């Protein structure tokens, strides 16, 4: 199993923990990845609103680079995953866009023949590796750890083919495979507000509050996320947003929990990067952590 | 096993043994009335041999229960307390008949429509039910064995109205070998449909699908077609109606006229001066004219109101010359009265479209470029006044058109009902307008109502074509410009409730989607045919769901928009249904009439003759030699008016004898 790896900007910044744990999980599950050489920012949702055509061309550069290696792409960041997928769709559906993109890529000696698939780790882990295989590799079952699986928007909507758009369950299965208890979480695909917290704080906070309170109501010890922005919002503004005075709960990447279960090194599990201490929660569940 | 009230020995030998059956009708009755208590009470009444309550009396087991009791308890009378007799009297009478009891030994008590469904207080409702049952028990004792009268059915059918509904019914019956008389008031058949250009949602051309049917009506040997004629009298009863028809003079001998229209060309009027009815006055016609090219029958008409010959008798009569040897023109033609016998009647008199003058705010009649939808149908029609070109009165093509929905519909100030077809025909017109003129089309609607096969899809298509849909009822159409861009335009003012602000939209042409109304003479017609109307004035069906084409008068059926707003598919379907109902009656060859006729006990008749003028059917005659009145049972329809009038009570009405009614009344009031 070899894939082209497209980390995206966030995983090099606020989302470092995601990358560290992700790579560790890849390793233990025997997934070989090769980072796309000199990948560039996908433009996220933002570039689209400034110059749509350009954003497709820029995103397509990454697709072309991967295609040159003949590898499918793994894009862990929700925004990247969406934009890369969307770019593919729009190049397929709109001849004009295709012309623009192809020409632009030619200029830098690249070609794009729509032969590359953009995958998400959830997809790869569940469908290429399989829950059984994962459980088999678990050394530290997350026994009794109550996790609220939070998918956010852009993984499942609108392009995810590997999971249900209304009620996705891939992460639930993976966490369960690691021995964790997945609590029901109706808001699992509700928007976290994206960059709203940065631009319109009061609105952003509202959206974050709903998510935290709901997780708490369902008795979660922690929320597992798949998106750097979601993780950032829920973690960094939790105290600010939450109504209850209850101590903040750790907001982790699902890969951190997997890494922990699969017995990765503390460095890889990267709890040190959390603003909310994780250790107490684990201690309470008697889950050993180096 | 049904819950039972143990048969009492209440039957005190003397009178006939009575069985009383109280129906739960699921919870319809039992939900309000304490049916058990009623049955138990009934069991205590004199003469009652058995009294039961049961879930559904009308069900097979329910009927079987009665029949079993009749055998086992030797019942001679039956009282069923359930729904309205108009619903199930037939059912239970049959049940009695099947076990050899005379069907008229039954009395029904209406404890559903008249009791459980209209009262909230269960206690009072139960008391009422008891009273009604008590009355029935006392009445039924006096019931006598009666025989229904069987009378033969005349196989001919009268169809009033030559629109699509009438046409379809006529052809269906004619093809089945029944003889049909079709009476149409206009000089041609075809009705509203003949005026349309296209039909929704398939957009196939109205003429293409209608004309063949019209011509086959004209040519079918089983159909006698009388256009320019009206029904003036109806007498008789189911299976045996006698009809008077007035045939207005068209001053043309139909048998001789070939429809060549040479007279029309030859008329001294070089061009028409009279507003053309068929084109709703959008064009002019001559005094002698053919309503429209495909008219059936292909016979011209002369309009005495405008023909010079009729005014001055000094006309050159170039038309007569032109007609030559055919000699089809007859200025002395007089109105004729035809009289026919038919067994069944189908009314397909259609509708009238709402007159927008009743709404001053939309400027109809004030602004030349405000049209009704029907006028626009003619404008769009290739055979219409403009040859299918959509041009305003000043000959210009409109660049923007506003279609106003619900004109004369869904409005307490005019008509409260939804006219059902306007949304769809407005969409059709919008499509044709855009297609033919490329104009911007705005639809102003309250709700878009497009239920029906392919209808919603048609709406979707219109949305795609870029027709504007503004959700809001138009307040006014004005030519007063509030903004430079509105100069020389008609401005439509409405709230765009979806954008949540008021808009003023200037257009060249305004189309009023007028609703459907009952014909102005609907009341007169229904009286003549002795049927009822809904409070709005639509002909009333016997049952809105289960008998939609029958009326409360046996042998009279309704089809098409005379019963309520209807589109073409529905009208045709209904016409087929009406034809089938008529055929079913005809092929049964006999009708059974209720035996509720009046009879005379000669010994008591004093021969005072006071009954004779009472009878609207001349069923009572005076027999001089006996000095007594005599009733012709065949003519008697059983209203009982003479009975009430007879001072010596020597006239009685079967099933409604004085004694029976007295017993019922006293039964109602007697205290238990």
């Amino acid at each position, binding site marked *: 199993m070899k894939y082209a790896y497209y980390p995206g900007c966030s995983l090099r910044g606020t989302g470092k923990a995601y990358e560290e744990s992700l790579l560790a999980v890849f390793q233990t599950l025997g997934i070989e990845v090769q980072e796309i050489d000199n990948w560039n920012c996908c433009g996220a949702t933002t570039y689209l609103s400034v110059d749509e055509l350009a954003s497709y061309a820029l995103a397509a550069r990454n697709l072309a680079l991967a295609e040159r290696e003949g590898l499918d792409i793994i894009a862990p960041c929700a925004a990247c995953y969406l934009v890369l997928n969307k770019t593919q769709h729009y190049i397929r559906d709109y001849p004009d866009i295709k012309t623009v993109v192809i020409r632009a890529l030619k200029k830098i000696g690249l070609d794009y023949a729509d032969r590359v698939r953009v995958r998400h780790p959830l997809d790869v882990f569940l469908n290429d590796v399989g829950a059984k295989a994962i459980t088999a590799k678990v050394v530290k079952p997350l026994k009794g750890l109550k996790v609220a699986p939070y998918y956010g928007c852009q993984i499942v909507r609108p392009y995810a083919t590997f999971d249900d758009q209304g009620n996705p369950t891939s992460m639930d299965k993976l966490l369960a495979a690691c021995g964790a208890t997945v609590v029901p979480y109706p808001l699992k695909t509700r928007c976290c507000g994206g960059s709203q917290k940065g631009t319109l704080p009061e609105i952003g906070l509202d959206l974050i509050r709903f998510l935290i309170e709901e997780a708490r109501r369902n008795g979660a010890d922690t929320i597992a996320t798949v998106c750097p922005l979601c993780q950032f919002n829920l973690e960094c503004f939790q105290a600010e947003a939450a109504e209850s005075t209850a101590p903040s709960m750790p907001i982790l990447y699902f890969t951190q929990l997997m890494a922990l279960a699969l017995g990765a090194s503390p460095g890889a599990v990267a709890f040190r990067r959390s603003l909310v201490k994780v250790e107490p929660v684990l201690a309470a569940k008697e889950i050993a952590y180096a | 096993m049904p819950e039972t009230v143990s048969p009492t020995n209440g039957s005190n030998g003397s009178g006939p043994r009575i069985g009383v059956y109280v129906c739960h009708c699921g919870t319809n009755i039992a939900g309000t009335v304490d049916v058990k208590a009623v049955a138990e009470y009934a069991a205590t009444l004199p003469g009652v041999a058995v009294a039961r309550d049961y879930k559904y009396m009308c069900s097979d087991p329910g009927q079987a229960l009665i029949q079993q009791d009749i055998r086992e308890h030797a019942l001679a009378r039956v009282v069923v307390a359930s729904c*309205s007799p108009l619903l199930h009297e037939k059912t239970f009478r049959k049940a009695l008949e099947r076990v050899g009891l005379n069907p008229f030994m039954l009395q029904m008590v209406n404890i559903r*429509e008249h009791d459980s469904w209209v009262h909230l207080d269960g206690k009072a409702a139960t008391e009422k039910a008891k009273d009604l049952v008590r009355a029935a028990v006392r009445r039924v004792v006096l019931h006598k064995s009666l025989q229904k009268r069987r009378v033969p059915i005349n196989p001919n059918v009268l169809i009033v109205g030559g629109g699509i509904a009438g046409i379809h019914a006529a052809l269906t019956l004619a093809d089945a070998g029944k003889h049909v008389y079709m009476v149409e008031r206009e000089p041609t058949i075809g009705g509203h449909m003949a005026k349309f250009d296209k039909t929704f949602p398939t957009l196939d051309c109205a003429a293409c699908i209608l004309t063949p049917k019209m011509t086959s009506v004209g040519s079918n040997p089983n159909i006698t077609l009388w256009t320019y004629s009206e029904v003036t009298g109806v007498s008789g009863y189911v299976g045996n109606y006698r009809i008077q028809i007035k045939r207005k003079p068209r001053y043309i001998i139909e048998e001789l006229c070939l429809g060549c229209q040479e007279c029309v060309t030859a008329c001294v009027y070089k061009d028409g001066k009279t507003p053309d009815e068929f084109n709703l006055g959008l064009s002019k016609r001559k005094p002698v004219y053919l309503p429209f090219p495909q008219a059936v029958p292909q016979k011209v008409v002369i309009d005495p109101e405008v023909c010079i010959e009729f005014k001055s008798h000094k006309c050159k009569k170039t038309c007569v010359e032109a007609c030559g040897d055919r000699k089809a023109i007859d200025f002395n033609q007089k109105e004729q009265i035809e009289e026919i016998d038919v067994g069944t009647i189908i009314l397909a008199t259609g509708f009238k479209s709402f007159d927008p003058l009743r709404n001053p705010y939309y400027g109809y009649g004030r602004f030349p470029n405000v049209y009704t939808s029907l006028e626009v149908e003619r404008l769009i029609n290739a055979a219409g006044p403009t040859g299918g070109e959509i041009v305003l009165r000043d000959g210009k093509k409109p660049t923007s058109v506003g279609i106003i929905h619900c004109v004369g519909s869904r409005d307490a100030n005019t008509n409260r009902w939804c006219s059902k077809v306007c949304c769809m025909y407005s969409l059709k017109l919008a499509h044709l307008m855009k297609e033919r003129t490329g104009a911007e089309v705005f639809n102003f609607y309250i709700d878009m109502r497009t239920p029906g096969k392919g209808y919603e899809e048609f709406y979707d298509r219109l949305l795609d074509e870029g027709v504007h849909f503004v959700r809001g009822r138009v307040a006014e159409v004005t030519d007063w410009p509030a903004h430079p861009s509105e100069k020389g335009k008609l401005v439509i003012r409405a709230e765009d409730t979806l954008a949540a602000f008021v808009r003023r939209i200037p257009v060249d042409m305004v189309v009023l989607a007028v609703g459907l109304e009952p014909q102005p003479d609907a009341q007169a017609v229904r009286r003549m045919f002795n049927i009822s109307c809904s409070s709005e004035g639509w002909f009333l069906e016997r049952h809105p769901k289960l008998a939609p084409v029958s009326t409360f008068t046996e042998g009279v059926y309704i089809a098409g928009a005379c019963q309520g707003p209807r589109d073409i598919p529905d009208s045709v379907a209904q016409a087929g249904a009406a034809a089938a109902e008529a055929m079913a009656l005809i092929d049964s060859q006999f009708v059974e009439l209720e035996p509720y006729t009046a009879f005379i006990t000669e010994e008591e008749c004093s021969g005072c003759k006071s009954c004779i003028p009472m009878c*609207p059917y001349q069923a009572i005659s005076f027999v001089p030699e006996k000095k007594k009145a005599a009733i012709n049972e065949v003519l008697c329809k059983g209203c*009982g008016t003479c009975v*009430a009038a007879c001072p010596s009570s020597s006239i009685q009405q079967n099933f409604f004898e*004085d004694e029976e009614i007295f017993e019922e009344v006293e039964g109602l009031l007697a205290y238990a």
Partner: protein
Amino acid sequence: MRNRQLTRAPVSAGTFEPRIVAFFCNWCTYLAADLAGTSRMKHAPNVRVVRLMCSGRLDPQFVLDAFAQGADGVLIGGCHPGDCHYQEGNYKTLRRYHLLKRLLKQMGIEDDRCRLEWISAAEGDRVRSTINDMVERVRALGPLHFNVEREDHREEVTV
């Protein structure tokens, strides 16, 4: 016709519930009452309906007998003028009604106790309002007191 026993209601102390007998014609008013039923138009439970084929069948004696037997009011229902299923029965009814009203007046029976209404098959709501209105009027009048000339009255009802 045989003489009838007059069995008037013992005027129960406490709340008085009028007992009203209605004579409805089969084609208009009876249908309207059915319609009121199918449309669940709730109304006062004080009326008991007797079905006649035509209001023209209504013999004034029916009304007198009803009063004699303890009715506090009588309601007569027929088709609107011109709508009679039997062409003109309801006109006859109207004529008799006028005479009947005079008679009742002489007998001291209040005007509101006997009422003729034209109600077509489509007017279920008219049935509801008419019944409710009549029940209220009769309730206001109280029970029909008759005992005064009961004997003479019997003469009235017996022919």
